[in-house]
């Protein structure tokens, strides 16, 4: 062999050997156990270590799909182009309604770009929400809803550290199956779809038949399955995964789905559950719903205690509005005391600028204000808010001024904290839902709903006398509930009640309802409410009413005597409420006697806050004893709401002392 050639070859071989050494140390792969963890000490080369550290290896991202891997290789780096062409094909198939081809194409797209999360989200939605509706047969629709879910399940397996897919699954199970027009059918199909339950378990390890996933009929419930998916997301985040949404939107879903579950129990007949009679089934159902609301209340309160980093940079807990108000109040008192005369003087100047009625309202203790005074006082409280910095600057002594300015800074911070809590609470109607959870557990709510259902049943069977009696009982209980929990008057429940009143009127066969009709006040309120009487400040008062004015009836004691309210009646041409009601006096709910002095929140009143469901076991409609605490076996005693926080909140739930009422301390009508 030519010596030059030999020389060259040897040089090349040597260079290759030399290069192999750093390549080995750089590119050596890691060795993993079956569960994906790194085998003892075999972390691989530098590149493998970086991949492991940043979870960039295919194995770290999720399960490997041979089809996906081979397709990606086969496209020789043109997978983006291939995916685009397939996407266009998918659109064509959708347009021409070639559903099977669409499904197959979507699988190919996902296989080409398995870690492109938006594909999983978009196309699963496409199948569950868009394609499913193209089928006339609701069973076929259900099948396509499941296909979308299956797509997400596949995406979740391939991207095991991403919470988007489980989060979407939570949404699909709840929203698609529980809100669609076919919700009754979907929910029933899902309950009985044993194959699907087993498939979910086999593919994801999520047991939807566990006690937290079962409805009162002991079958998997779509809302609770959705919640289980959210719980899985929360677990993933606890293990280091990123949230799919903002903290507020991410963590509200779990408890919210509990509430939706409770609503679904109230709305459905559960005809598949054996029962001695329709009445027995209704009673069982509403008790089960009440228990579901209690679970929802507990979770909502837990959610309220969750620290949330706001976009303002502060960390808040929505359930601690009362504490925030108290802290601010203390800081304000401390500041006022420290500043002494100057504070009083400046405050006095602002108070002097108030109108007499506002001053009068402000001077009255909370409990003695009538409704108009409540609104006036809240507005006045806002007007007399002092700028603490301005007060501090008026102090002459340098040291005192410096200290005052520090205190003022703290006051401003606390005030901002309240504002932030308020803004976040309003985004999700926190106060409304908290109130709703409590209201739905009231004895009155249970009785009202059961009797309203019974009345409808009697009406269907043309048993007019029985229907009449059941309606009256239901309306009496509704009236009590609305007085206790006025926020319920601006909810869907109220619409149902109004519809019932219409049916009741038909039985009466009279043009007008009797003057002593229990819901007259409520109906008047609704008329005015629908005429835009309800401004946010008023809605705020309504939602916080039970906590701020425990034991006081909203409609019968307060609202009717408001001058403003009377004026509204006159303006809208409705009947003068003064003619319908006696002169204002506060009535003890328990005794029915006039109160001599305003009630303080006592231990007794706190007792009233407890869930309506007793510790006794519920009887199933068929007469079997089942745990009251549907669906789990947790005793009611364990599930009592946090009383301490309730009482803390009782005085100062709404941020009325510091924020402008119209800025929305009100929960507003129900957000869906």
């Amino acid at each position, binding site marked *: 062999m030519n010596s030059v050639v030999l020389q060259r070859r040897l040089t090349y071989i040597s260079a290759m050997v030399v290069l192999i050494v750093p390549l080995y140390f750089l590119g050596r792969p890691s060795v993993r156990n079956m569960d994906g963890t790194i085998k003892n000490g075999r972390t691989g080369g530098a590149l493998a270590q970086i991949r492991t550290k940043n979870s960039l290896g295919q194995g770290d991202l999720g399960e490997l799909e*041979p*089809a996906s891997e*081979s*397709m990606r290789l086969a496209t020789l780096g043109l997978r983006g182009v291939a995916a685009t062409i397939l996407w266009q094909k998918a659109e064509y198939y959708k*347009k*021409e*309604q070639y*559903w*099977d081809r669409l*499904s*197959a194409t979507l*699988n*190919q797209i996902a*296989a080409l770009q398995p870690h492109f999360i938006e594909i999983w989200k978009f196309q699963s939605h496409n199948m569950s929400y868009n394609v499913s509706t193209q*089928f*006339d*047969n*609701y069973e*076929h629709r259900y*099948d396509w809803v499941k*296909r979308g879910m*299956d797509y997400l399940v596949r995406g979740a397996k391939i991207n095991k550290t991403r919470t988007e897919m489980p989060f979407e699954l939570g949404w699909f199970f709840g929203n698609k199956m529980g809100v669609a*027009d*076919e919700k009754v*059918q979907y929910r029933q199909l899902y309950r009985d779809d044993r*194959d699907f339950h*087993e*498939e979910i378990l086999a593919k994801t390890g999520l047991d939807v038949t566990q006690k937290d996933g079962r409805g009162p009929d002991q079958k998997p419930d779509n809302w609770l399955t959705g919640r289980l998916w959210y719980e899985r997301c929360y677990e993933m985040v606890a293990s280091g995964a990123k949230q799919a949404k903002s903290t507020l939107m991410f963590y509200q879903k779990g408890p919210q789905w509990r509430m939706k579950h409770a609503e679904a129990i109230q709305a459905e007949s559960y005809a598949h559950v054996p029962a001695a009679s329709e009445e027995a089934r209704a009673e069982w159902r509403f008790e089960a719903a009440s228990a579901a609301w209690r679970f929802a209340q507990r979770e909502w309160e837990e959610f309220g205690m969750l620290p949330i980093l706001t976009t303002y940079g502060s960390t808040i807990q929505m359930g601690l509005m009362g504490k925030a108000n108290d802290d601010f109040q203390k800081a304000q008192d401390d500041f006022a005391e420290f500043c002494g005369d100057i504070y009083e003087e400046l405050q006095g100047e602002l108070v002097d600028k108030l109108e007499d009625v506002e001053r009068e309202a402000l001077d009255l203790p909370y409990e003695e204000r009538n409704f108009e005074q409540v609104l006036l006082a809240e507005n006045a409280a806002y007007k007399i808010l002092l700028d603490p910095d301005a007060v501090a600057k008026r102090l002459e002594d340098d040291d005192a001024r410096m200290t005052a300015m520090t205190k003022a800074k703290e006051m401003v911070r606390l005030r901002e904290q309240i504002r932030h809590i308020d803004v976040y609470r309003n985004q999700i109607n926190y106060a409304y839902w908290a109130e709703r959870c409590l209201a739905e557990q009231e004895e009155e709510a249970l009785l009202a709903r059961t009797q309203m259902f019974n009345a409808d049943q009697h009406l269907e069977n043309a048993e007019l006398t029985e229907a009449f009696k059941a309606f009256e009982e239901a309306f009496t209980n509704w009236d009590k509930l609305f007085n206790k929990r006025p926020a319920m008057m601006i909810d869907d429940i109220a619409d149902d009640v109004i519809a019932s009143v219409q049916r009741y009127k038909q039985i009466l066969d009279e043009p007008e309802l009797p003057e002593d009709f229990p819901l007259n006040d409520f109906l008047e309120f609704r008329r005015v409410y629908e005429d835009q009487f309800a401004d946010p400040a008023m809605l705020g008062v309504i939602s916080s009413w039970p906590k701020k004015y425990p034991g006081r009836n909203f409609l019968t004691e307060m609202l009717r005597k408001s001058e403003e309210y009377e004026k509204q009646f006159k303006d809208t041409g409705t009947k003068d409420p003064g003619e319908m009601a006696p002169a204002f006096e506060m009535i003890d709910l328990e005794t029915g006697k006039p109160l001599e002095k305003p009630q303080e929140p006592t231990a007794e009143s706190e007792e009233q806050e407890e869930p309506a469901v007793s510790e006794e076991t519920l009887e199933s409609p068929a007469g079997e004893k089942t745990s009251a605490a549907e669906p789990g076996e947790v005793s009611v005693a364990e599930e009592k709401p946090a009383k301490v926080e309730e009482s803390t909140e009782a005085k100062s739930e709404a941020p009325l002392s510091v924020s402008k009422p119209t800025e929305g301390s009100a929960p507003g009508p129900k957000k869906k």
Partner: protein
Amino acid sequence: MRIEEEQMWSYFEWLIYKLGLVHGAGIAVGLSILGFLLCFIVSTFKYGPGEGFFRVTRVIYELLARDLPGTSLHRIFALSRLAFQEAIRRKVLALMAVFIVVLLFAGWFLDSNSSNIGQLYISFVMTGTSYLVLLLGLFLSCFSLPADITSKTIQTITTKPVRATEIVLGRIFGFGAVGTVLLVAMGILSYFFVVRGVNHSHSFRDWGPGKEGVAGATEVDAYHSHKFTMEEGADGSIQYGVTNDVQSHKHTVTAREVDGETKLEFGAPEGLLQARMPIYGSMAIYDRAGNLARSGLNVGYESEYQTYIEGASLMSAVWTFDVDKSEFPDGKLPIELSLKAFRTFKGDIVTGVQGEIILRNPDGSAESRRNPFIVKEFEVDQIVFDGKMPGSINGEPKEVDIFEDLINDDGKLEIMIRCTDPGQYFGMAVGDVYLRAGERQFGWNLFKGFLGIWMQMVLVICLGVMFSTFLSGPVAMIATLTSLVLGFFGTIAADVALGETPGGGPIEAIIRMPMQTGALVDLDLGNPALETAIEFADAGIMYSLFTVFQALPAFGKFNTAEFVAYGFNIFPDLVGKHLTMTFCYFILTSCVGYFFLKTRELAAA
């Protein structure tokens, strides 16, 4: 499945009434004249008009007087064998290995949860085979002759007493034979792959007496489960049953006594691999006033394949069928529907949209009662009418016999469909309602499907050989590939030429691009004369292209995989039509190939 109207034509209808023969003859004559003129012009430039004319006519004369009559089948066979051996030497059998590997791993890529696994498997194997075989034809046919010419091997052949016709035909037959052998092998493998792939059974999960008799459910096998009901015999014993339709199939259930215990056995899936024999008719739509309309309503879908009729109105769709009683030996008339429902409001969610079917004599003398039905979407819904049913004859309520009273002297029967739900609509196309006249063998249907692929392959080989007679290998391949692409997608050019695609032709498009003018906006250059000139120029270009595309084989139309996949027997007339077209293209390309080879030979001489 969507059936095009032209697919329903019988062979002679296509050949004579729809001017298939005239069209083909026109293309042949047109191309002959064009070819002659082109050759004459080229020869004129080379040799002058007289000599040029002489040379061109001499080639034609040689074809007709010497080469064609002198063509020997023996020599063609020898050359074919040579081409066959050459292909084998070029390791084309490796393609079989590729196909087997694809089949082995197909399970990874196919959606096992598909609503019709049969369709998916059939489409997959037929598409896969088609791609592989067309590529094979392309590579084999385009490179063989140029390689021989480059390596001078052709001179060895041409010095032998071999005619140009024999060289061209030998190549086409040889490569065709290689492709055929591979295609047969692939077809056999595909058959077993599909049959084995869709075959499955079930084990029962639970069963027992229920509200509707003895019923139960199966375990999940092959990603689905069924519910089933059993029929009780006269002695009260349970013998047979049937499952519900899931993923487009059902199973029969047989009860057997084993050791004193009743065991259930589930049969093979039924309904996945079939070859229905449909009889299609013509469709007419009647509007809200009951008058004949050009089409139904558009409910807002982009796709206009189906047209819609309104419920609870006089709107109806009437199909007219030619019925031959002998095709329905059991005296029953099965019809199959694939209608679409469109709701303007949800209404009754549980019950589907309802309609009625009326069978009537086109003469108006008799009609059946209104037969109610509920539409089943995206599946084939079969309704079987007994031979006799209540109806009316000349307005008198009487029992009517479908084959005696409702078919007129011309053998025609009308089927009227109406939607009876107010505010809801039925969507339909002409192929959505047909009479089902029995069934053919699936295997035979699959063979016909593969015959379609074979014809595509032959066309590619013909084109490849033709181009390779005057182009180098790579250029011939590009030319064949271009013909293939244009043959598949030539309709785009037709749409542009006929103005169905907005935006004008190539010149207009070039102007629109820098101006960033949308295709739907009229071209405004501020000079109407210029705009008109551009339009005319574009029209000229597009019609020329359109004419060329028309001459190219429409490869897509030879693909009958959908028929097989959706379980429809491929009409023998359609196969005949495709075979005729393939033969014509074979003749055409052979002639062109011969002339070029002959010219090339002359030039070499």
